[in-house]
């Protein structure tokens, strides 16, 4: 299954819950304010590096660009809306709202 997170990990616990429940190799897609999680150089970078070792992690390009985020944590795949659609084709999605 595909886990989708749309909230900032700095202000909200949705990503925490997602990571607690997700099993190894479940893909995680970050959209909207969720993309802050993969910015390079934040206090969460260590945790996100571990996460990338355990899960394929994707972040939506339109949301990264809108927020001026250029550098993302190594191993994170940046995808467009078409990539988002393909992820949902391949996996049943759950939005952690």
């Amino acid at each position, binding site marked *: 299954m595909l886990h989708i997170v749309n909230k900032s990990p700095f202000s909200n616990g949705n990503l925490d*819950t997602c990571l*607690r*429940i997700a*099993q190894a190799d479940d893909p995680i897609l970050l959209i909207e304010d969720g993309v802050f999680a993969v910015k390079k150089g934040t206090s969460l970078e260590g945790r996100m590096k571990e996460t990338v070792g355990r899960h394929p992690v994707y972040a939506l390009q339109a949301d990264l660009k809108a927020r001026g985020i250029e550098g993302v944590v190594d191993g994170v795949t940046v995808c467009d809306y078409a990539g988002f659609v393909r992820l949902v084709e391949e996996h*049943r999605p*759950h939005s952690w709202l």
Partner: protein
Amino acid sequence: MEEQAPRKIMFVNRRAPHGSIYAYEGLEVVLIFGAYDQEISAAFLDDAVFSLKKGQDTSELGVKEFSATFRVLEAYGVENRYVEKESLEKRGLTPDDLIVDVEVVDGATLRKAMGEQDVLLPF
């Protein structure tokens, strides 16, 4: 024409009651879905475990008290009712505090059940 197998649909409840309408409007969906002969489950984690807490009294708030409705989940065909253990423990709650009989499961068991669903609906 071939009869379609029932679909597995899980309501993944994570919001607290009363502070927002999701718990209430989510419950309205569950009750309607009960009429469609699908395989319905409901999971409660994070603040949604408070939706099941005994002793809610909304008279002073002047809003509807709907926790009793959770008691009819089983009658409405919601066969699996999961509560995540860690969510319950963090909030100082035990199964005795809850208004319905539920299965207390760890995160891995919940994830496994989620993985078996055709549709996951967050409320």
